[in-house]
């Protein structure tokens, strides 16, 4: 035991000697939480929009003013004819063009109907849909103003909505759990796999292996400091999201911390597994960064909900541990539910941890060849 403590101490010294890595280790999660909290939102705030007004009368001016002044758009220009639309889109600043037909105002008065079309740049589908929907809603408003509330009154079924868990519809309710999940698995897997392969690559592993320390002690000694650092990271992220975004932990904080420890353990054992199959640090970094980053961002339900994907991705993403942890944090932090609601996810994480450790133990070679 005394030997083991000495070894852990040595590892800590290694880590603390490198100020910069340590700073970045804590800096990455902080920066990400802040970036996501402030930068990322899924609303439109100043999308470029151009107007092709073939009628140029009072009504069209009124509608275009209404659209431009809504706060979602900024006007990028007035077009003169249809041929200019393609040019405008190719330059890339304009996301949609609003076209008023000829004689718009007259038609609206005489025939009671006039038509406007929205041509959106479909090369960015999400922006195109948002811009189209917003514009349609604004024109819908205009129609309502024209007609008074006659249509509204005829509606017999009046749906009401309650936005549960996140009544103000803030986007960081989604992103904070996602960022914690992403950062923990990447950092833990990277750190452990690199620190172990480093000893292999430089030949110092041999020194450790001939020492009286048992292989298990070596691995544990390597992992313990990172376990503590990652745990401090979790505390920092939670504190930051509470202080800056007022995101409270609704459920039991103890349970949340315990689950985080489990997830850190899982990520560390994944790192150990990666280190047993890599011979150089480059390889370990390649697997744990390039191999894990995009699948974690895209398939864990972090930004893109799994329900919207084709069915096969539901199965595919079920081998990714982050998917379960996101569910766990969301349940505890935001929904405020207890272990009864997340025991399945917890069991899966425990199983994965054991599996990774099991494979690593089998693959770990005491002798170098």
């Amino acid at each position, binding site marked *: 035991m005394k030997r083991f403590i000495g070894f852990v101490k040595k590892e800590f010294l290694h880590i603390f000697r490198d100020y*910069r890595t340590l700073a970045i280790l804590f800096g990455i999660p902080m920066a990400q939480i802040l970036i996501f909290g402030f*930068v990322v939102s899924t609303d439109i705030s100043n*999308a470029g929009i151009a107007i092709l007004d073939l009628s140029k009368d009072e009504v069209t001016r009124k509608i275009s003013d209404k659209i431009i002044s809504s706060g979602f758009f900024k006007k990028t220009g007035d077009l003169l004819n249809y041929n200019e639309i393609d040019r405008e889109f*190719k330059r890339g600043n304009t996301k949609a063009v609003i076209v008023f037909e000829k004689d718009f105002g007259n038609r609206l008065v005489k025939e009671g109907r006039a038509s406007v079309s929205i041509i959106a740049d479909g090369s960015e*589908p999400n922006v195109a849909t948002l811009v189209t929907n917003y514009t349609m809603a604004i*024109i819908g408003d205009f129609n309502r103003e024209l007609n008074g509330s006659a249509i509204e009154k005829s509606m017999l*079924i009046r749906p009401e909505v309650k936005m549960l868990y996140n009544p103000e519809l803030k986007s960081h309710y989604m992103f904070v759990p996602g960022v914690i999940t992403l950062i923990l698995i990447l950092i833990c897997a990277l750190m452990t796999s690199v620190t172990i392969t480093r000893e292999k690559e430089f030949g110092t592993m041999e020194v450790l292996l001939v020492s009286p320390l048992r292989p298990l002690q070596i691995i544990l000694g390597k992992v313990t400091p990172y376990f503590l650092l990652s745990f401090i990271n979790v505390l920092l992220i939670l504190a930051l999201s509470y202080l800056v975004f007022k995101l409270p932990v609704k459920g039991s904080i103890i349970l949340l911390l315990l689950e985080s420890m489990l997830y850190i353990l899982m990520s560390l054992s994944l790192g150990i597994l990666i280190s047993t199959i890599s011979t150089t640090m480059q390889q370990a970094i390649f697997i744990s960064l390039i191999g894990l980053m995009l*699948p974690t961002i895209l398939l864990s339900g972090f930004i893109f909900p799994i329900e*919207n994907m084709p069915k096969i991705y539901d199965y595919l993403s079920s081998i990714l541990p982050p998917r379960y942890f996101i569910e766990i944090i969301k349940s505890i932090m935001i929904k405020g539910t207890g272990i009864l609601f997340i025991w399945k996810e917890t069991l899966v994480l425990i199983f994965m941890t054991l599996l990774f450790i099991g494979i690593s133990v089998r693959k770990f070679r005491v002798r170098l060849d």
Partner: protein
Amino acid sequence: MRTILFLIRKEFLQIFRNKFISKAIIGVPIVQMLILVPAITFEIRNINLCIIDNDFSQESRGLISKLEGSTFFRVSFATWSEKDANNELHRNRCSMILNIPSGFGRDITSGKPSKILATVDAINALNAQLSWAYLNGVITDYNREIITDNIGSNPPVPLRMVDVTNRYWYNESLNYNYYMLPGILVILVTAIGFLLAGLNMVREKEIGTIEQINVTPVRKHQFIIAKMVPFLLIGLVDLALGLLIGKITFNIPFEGNILLMFLGSSIFLVAVLGLALFISTMSGTQQQYMFTAFFFMIVFILMSGIFTPFESMPVWAQKFDLINPVAYLIRINRMVMLKGSTIHDLGKDILSLLVIAICFTGFAVRRYRKTS
């Protein structure tokens, strides 16, 4: 010149000596692209709906079957107990509860308005808003039907109305693959070039082999160029393969000039590799480099506008993207591929990218010291 060629040859030998890396450099981007691109969509399908039908009348059942008939909703659970319904929501087995009050059918047939309550899981705000909008759409349709069926009169026709039609250009059916593929490809190429080039240089430092280069007459810029060129070529090969596969499997359109894309990509790779080498001149160990690079990479990628619209970022973040090479290339590639933009349209972007590339590479050459 000959010196550079020899150095480049040495780099290639070193890279491909590692069996794993030499396979992964080509294999990983292709596999990830094939798997990840079709997964991503902002569209909403299958909103799992939990129904509390306290009325059980012809009208309420009519509404439910109308919802089931729409492409967005799937009734996953029906109950009379609100507690059970909330439980389903907590367990994430449904994302919306629709509560139809008793007396709903009676009120409606007698022409009285009736309220129904939708409870939406709003953790994902965007999804929640869209589901609610879809629900509203279905209910409005049903409203019209009821008015025509039950009361036998047509709903009041508005006197004056602006009709709206809409179209999407360049990607009429809003196929998300067209949008995602150029972006994901750029991210993968960035990740590989950025990580490996920098690691390669730091590794020489860490092992000490850089001393052997430093004592030779190899000049600073020669060394930096030789470290860049192999990864530049690898990046371009990855890009070409990715595009080819995109064409074959996802039938991505190529409206514009491919050469323009490769010009943009080459300048982009020089910028990224320049930054990688600059960071590596300041790092002592591979671990240090990796964490710094990881930090930059994540910031570049998340702010590139691919996952969340550029239009919705605050102004300072949009300003930051002026120095974000990833944002430039994703935009250039998408515009050339889907819209057929030409060099006239993209001149400003390509020029800015060029300035960034020159700056980063310049920093790297300046910072690299042959003497310690």
